[in-house]
């Protein structure tokens, strides 16, 4: 089996990001999974056991004092160093902002084909690597392959549920020389804002979104209350964002965030194409809207024609009763 690199993301405090399990699982589907991580000197050893539990057969630690002060460069350097040492057939990274930047630069540097935002990976009978894409809000499935020696793959967060078998990894530690001229400098890491205790939209298992039907910013709290009752993330339609009920970063849709949760609840959302394209790959869709002709009902597994201000409080109460 050929080596397949999985680029592991760590937080500024050195904690392994929650994208790691799916990345290692994807790498294991294509070959021998090697976890590649850029760390400060000496900081990698504590990650090895955890990466082994996630299925990494080898951990490649690239150490540099520039980790945390240069953006993307250390991760790119780690991938290039591991590629020279291990001749992988593929490199798998999270489709996150920093990792996909490293993947794009790596692919351009090595003249490799890049399959972006895939939801699954596999090989054909001849061993060729195939990426499965979900396009235009899940309306199409596109399978593509790579004709270059290395396939570079960015994996959509939350898309792959599989997990690799636990392993006891071998460890390689190298010292990394990062090109500082071509890397942006990290001037400051901002303290996280007040923690709402809610999961982020991307990759959330449950999403509750509100639309123009909520009527006001004050009323939008109803969406948050149901999200909290379900342990979910809060989203919104573009109309709700444009009306100022909630900030732009919560927008679900083709020009906002695309979500693919187990459960999506749409409150007071009509369901324009723009919005549906951002949520219709959810496993189960629930819609509550007083307009019985709202297009959102065409994609809902359970639709209620009714007043959100009546139905939602009753639903929250019913959920509370059940969890007691």
């Amino acid at each position, binding site marked *: 089996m050929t080596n397949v690199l999985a680029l592991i*993301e*760590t*937080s500024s405090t050195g904690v392994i990001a929650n*994208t790691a399990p799916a990345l290692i699982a994807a790498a294991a589907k294509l070959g021998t999974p090697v976890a590649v991580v850029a760390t400060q000197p000496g900081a990698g050893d504590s990650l090895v056991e955890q990466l082994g539990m996630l299925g990494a057969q080898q951990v490649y630690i690239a150490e540099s004092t520039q980790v945390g002060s240069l*953006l*993307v460069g250390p991760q790119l350097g780690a991938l290039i160093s591991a590629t020279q040492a291990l001749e992988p057939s593929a490199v798998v990274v999270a489709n*996150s*902002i*920093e990792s*996909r*930047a490293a*993947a*794009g*630069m790596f692919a*351009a540097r090595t*003249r490799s084909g*890049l399959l*972006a*935002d895939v939801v699954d990976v596999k090989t054909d009978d001849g061993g060729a690597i195939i990426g499965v894409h979900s396009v*235009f809000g899940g*309306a*199409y*499935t*596109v*399978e*593509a392959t*790579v*004709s270059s020696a290395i396939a570079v793959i960015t994996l959509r967060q939350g898309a792959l549920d599989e997990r690799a078998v636990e392993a006891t990894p071998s460890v390689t530690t190298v010292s990394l020389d990062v090109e500082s001229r*071509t890397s*942006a*400098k*990290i*001037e400051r*890491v901002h303290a*996280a804002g007040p923690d709402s205790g809610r999961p982020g939209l*991307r990759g959330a298992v449950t999403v509750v979104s509100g639309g123009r039907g909520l009527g006001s910013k004050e009323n939008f709290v109803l969406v948050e209350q149901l999200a909290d009752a*379900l342990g979910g993330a809060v989203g919104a339609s573009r109309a709700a964002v444009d009306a100022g009920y909630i900030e*732009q970063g919560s927008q679900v849709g083709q*020009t*906002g965030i*695309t979500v693919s949760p*187990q*459960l999506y609840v749409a409150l007071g959302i009509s369901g*324009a*194409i723009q919005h549906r*394209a951002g949520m*219709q790959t959810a496993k189960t869709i*629930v819609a509550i809207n007083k307009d019985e002709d709202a297009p959102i009902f*065409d994609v809902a597994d*359970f*639709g*209620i*024609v*009714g*007043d959100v201000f009546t139905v939602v409080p*009753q639903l929250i109460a*019913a*959920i509370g009763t*059940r*969890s007691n």
Partner: protein
Amino acid sequence: MKIIVLIKQVPDTEEERKLDTSTGLLDREAGDRIADEITERALEVALRHKDGNKGSEVVVLTMGPLPAKEALRKALSMGADSAVHVVDERLEGADMALTAAVLAAAAKRTGFDLIIAGNESTDGRGGVVPAMVAEHLGLPLLPSLNSVEITEVSVRGEAALDIGSLTVSAELPALMSVTEWAAEARFPNFKGIISAKRKHVETLSLADIDLDSAATTTTPVLTTSQRPARTAGKKIVDDGTAAQELAEFLADRNLL
């Protein structure tokens, strides 16, 4: 300062978008094509710098078939000074790697101090082309900036990464991509629309740009299939018991 803004024409997100399942290519007849909103926001970032710094120049650059010129015209009417359009039959079906190599070669030919792109297009959503262009040109990349500060010698901004928010900076020349938070795009006014007609659109073919000989499409599409449309499930009119029924539905599916 000379700023290049990367513009992309995409299918209108307000309409149904289609792929041709036999070729895997976009069905261009299926709906309207517009300048991607995120690239208009990237242009707005450049135009704001130009507004406050006379003598700055903003060039919009796109690669795409002939009708993509409409997106450049819109950008010119918003206030860009000139446009570059790379159009060549051999680029039909170009993947991200080839697209990035072409854009980088065209940018090099045009010259720049700063390149601004949208963080990800609404059609491909890959979000990797800006990084690939930066790598081809040996530039530092400032990805997905929510806010932008441009000086004569440097760029700085806040990048909201998935694992926390950072202030990042780089000396020019550099390449930045921006998110929808960075700027709200302006509308073209009458004067802008009239003056756009007189602005120069340079049309380049592959023969005109110094393309890396290794640049080629490396990600052939194998199959394209349409997923069956979702069908409507149960729909009830609330008579006071709907919430209870919904709670039971969710419990049955282990969603509570």
